[in-house]
């Protein structure tokens, strides 16, 4: 069998299987949950097989319906796409397994649609299909956020929908400009056609600005991040974890793919203002996200603001566009997804089972639930970027790349971001280990209102949650120790670009 034939299955399997839990839930919600898990196990195996084919051979491509790539719908998996597809499938499976609640059929159907959309974004080789897959994953995400009880979730989901749709539509407008300039939508053809059209032509620059701005909304770079904390804090715990780990990560992958695969580094050289603009947005994101995280009282909002800061770092790597810096950006992308996913799994479970919502509520957690507190600490250390975690490796490559490029301001920014993240993640860990037990005093929450402290004997966190967060912590350490392997994995892709 041709390995290329596996590619469309990566999208088609979860897309078609999305109807299965819907039907099964009529009989049993547990059955629907089991079937969803089964599909995701298959999806993970599929993604692993594709990664294996890509690792042992060349990137694999597939053209849907046999129509030539310039007109038809192309799919492509290089090492970057394959790694992201595996990440999407594995994280979606792990997060689903961490949730003991049996939801309705629609919930699991949407879960699979989310996976289909995200997988589509990472394997598509066509800028318009990227838009369609972005919207499939977006629609599933809006509906999943609204799956939580109460009107607050609906309001957060609506906000997310309005902002997300404007972002995706701006991206679509950028695709329109690129099409008018070149007459093609296939990424590989666009790379040469855009150069032929002239990188500094107004049409091409406008296309770049619109596409990257549109995707930045989905990545949630400052000041386009407003939807993120609300959506993550209001969503059901598992949904918040899946979106925090995958949603912005896949959008950031799309930025990387568009900047290097479509516009190419030659564009950044030809239009210095594009690079400066991206770098400025990244710097503002890093600092503003960090400061907002520092001020946040709700643990999940803190983590959401921390994502704004972390994706700013990814954008720094993209804007620098040297092999080392982009390696750093890609390692940061993967490392952040694992660490933030694990933290959200824990934070969601603590909020649901123990009613621990604010950072203050975490006080004394290490005494009551030492394992959970240790996992929070390990994952937080990766966010800060201390050795031996993957977060350290990412920042190391980024800082080296910045120094190598002579961008001292960017290098300073990477170091400053470590201090900022040390401050906000340190707050979380300090609460867990040093602060007096929350059960001994009343806690003032963000609104300045007093409420009863959570019971000291709050229900211990579900074992599934501990196992999944433990896996995330192990992954963060393993990727940290194996960071050179991860960098080597991405190296052939980067050689093709830079």
């Amino acid at each position, binding site marked *: 069998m041709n390995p290329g034939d596996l590619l469309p299955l990566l999208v088609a399997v979860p897309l078609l299987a999305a109807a299965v839990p819907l039907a099964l839930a009529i009989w049993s919600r547990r059955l629907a949950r089991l079937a969803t898990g089964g599909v995701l196990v298959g999806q993970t195996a599929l993604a692993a097989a594709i990664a294996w084919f890509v690792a042992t051979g060349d990137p694999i491509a597939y053209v849907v319906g046999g129509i030539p790539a310039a*007109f038809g719908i192309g799919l492509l998996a290089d090492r970057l796409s394959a790694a992201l597809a595996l990440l999407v499938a594995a994280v979606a499976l792990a997060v689903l397994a961490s949730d003991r609640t049996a939801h309705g059929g629609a919930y699991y159907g949407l879960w699979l649609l989310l996976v289909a959309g995200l997988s589509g974004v990472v394997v598509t080789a066509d800028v*318009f299909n990227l*838009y*369609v897959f972005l*919207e499939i994953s977006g*629609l599933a995400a*809006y*509906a999943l956020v*609204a799956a*939580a*009880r*109460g*009107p*607050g*979730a*609906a*309001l*957060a*989901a*609506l906000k997310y*929908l*309005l902002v997300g*749709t*404007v972002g995706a*539509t701006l991206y*679509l*407008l950028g695709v*329109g400009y690129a*099409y*008018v300039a070149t007459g093609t*939508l296939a990424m590989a053809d666009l790379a040469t056609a855009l150069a032929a059209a002239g990188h500094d032509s107004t049409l091409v620059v406008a296309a770049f600005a619109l596409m990257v701005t549109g995707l930045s909304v989905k990545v949630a770079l400052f000041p386009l991040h407003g939807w993120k904390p609300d959506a993550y804090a*209001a969503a059901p715990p598992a949904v918040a974890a899946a979106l925090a780990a995958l949603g912005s990560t896949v959008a950031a992958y799309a930025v990387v793919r568009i900047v290097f695969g479509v516009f190419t580094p030659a564009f950044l050289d030809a239009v210095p203002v594009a690079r400066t603009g991206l770098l400025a947005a990244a710097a503002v994101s890093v600092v503003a996200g960090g400061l907002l995280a520092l001020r946040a009282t709700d643990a999940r909002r803190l983590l959401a603001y921390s994502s704004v800061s972390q994706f700013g770092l990814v954008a720094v790597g993209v804007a620098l566009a040297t092999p080392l810096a982009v390696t750093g950006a890609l390692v940061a992308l993967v490392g952040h997804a694992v660490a933030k996913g694990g933290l959200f799994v824990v934070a969601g479970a603590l909020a649901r089972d123990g*009613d621990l*919502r*604010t950072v203050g509520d975490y006080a004394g957690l290490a005494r009551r639930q030492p394992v959970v507190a240790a996992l929070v600490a390990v994952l937080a250390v990766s966010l800060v970027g201390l050795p031996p975690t993957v977060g350290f490796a990412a920042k190391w490559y980024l800082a080296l790349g910045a120094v190598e490029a002579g961008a001292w301001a960017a290098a300073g920014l990477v170091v400053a971001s470590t201090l900022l993240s040390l401050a906000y993640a340190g707050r979380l860990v300090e609460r867990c280990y040093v602060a007096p037990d929350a059960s001994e005093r009343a806690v003032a*929450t963000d*609104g300045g*209102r*007093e*409420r009863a402290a959570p019971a000291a004997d709050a229900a211990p966190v579900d074992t599934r949650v501990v196992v999944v967060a433990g896996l995330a912590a192990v992954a963060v350490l393993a990727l940290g120790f194996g960071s050179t392997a991860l960098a080597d994995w991405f190296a052939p892709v980067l050689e093709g670009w830079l």
Partner: protein
Amino acid sequence: MIDLVGAATWLPHVGYVLLVAIGLFVLVNDENLVKKIVGLNIFQTGIFLFFITSAYRTGGRAPLVSEPGPYVNPLPQVLILTAIVVGVSVTGVALALIVRLYDAYGTLREDVIRDLRAAEAREDGAPTPATDGGVREEDPA
């Protein structure tokens, strides 16, 4: 100098810019949630118009193989058919969410919902004002 004879080629561009601007303005400025969705739709329609304009050619016909050419470019039209489907789905999800909000708060105005939620948070001092699914009795509109 503006070529009035060729107005057919640039007028749609003016329309596209106007629709995008009006749509975004309504989306940002209006407090009524349904009108926000209307604004979103106008914004998207403007961008659809831009794509269709790019497919235009003088004397072009509908691209049917049974008809003689020259044809207008069919590709942008196909893309926009897809984008329209996406737009309809987004509108559907958005309206479903608004129905839920109306059930809970009895209003479509975002500012009123914001005030109600703030008041709710003050009253019961609950950690998350989001967790009650109860229908509000008073209609402030």
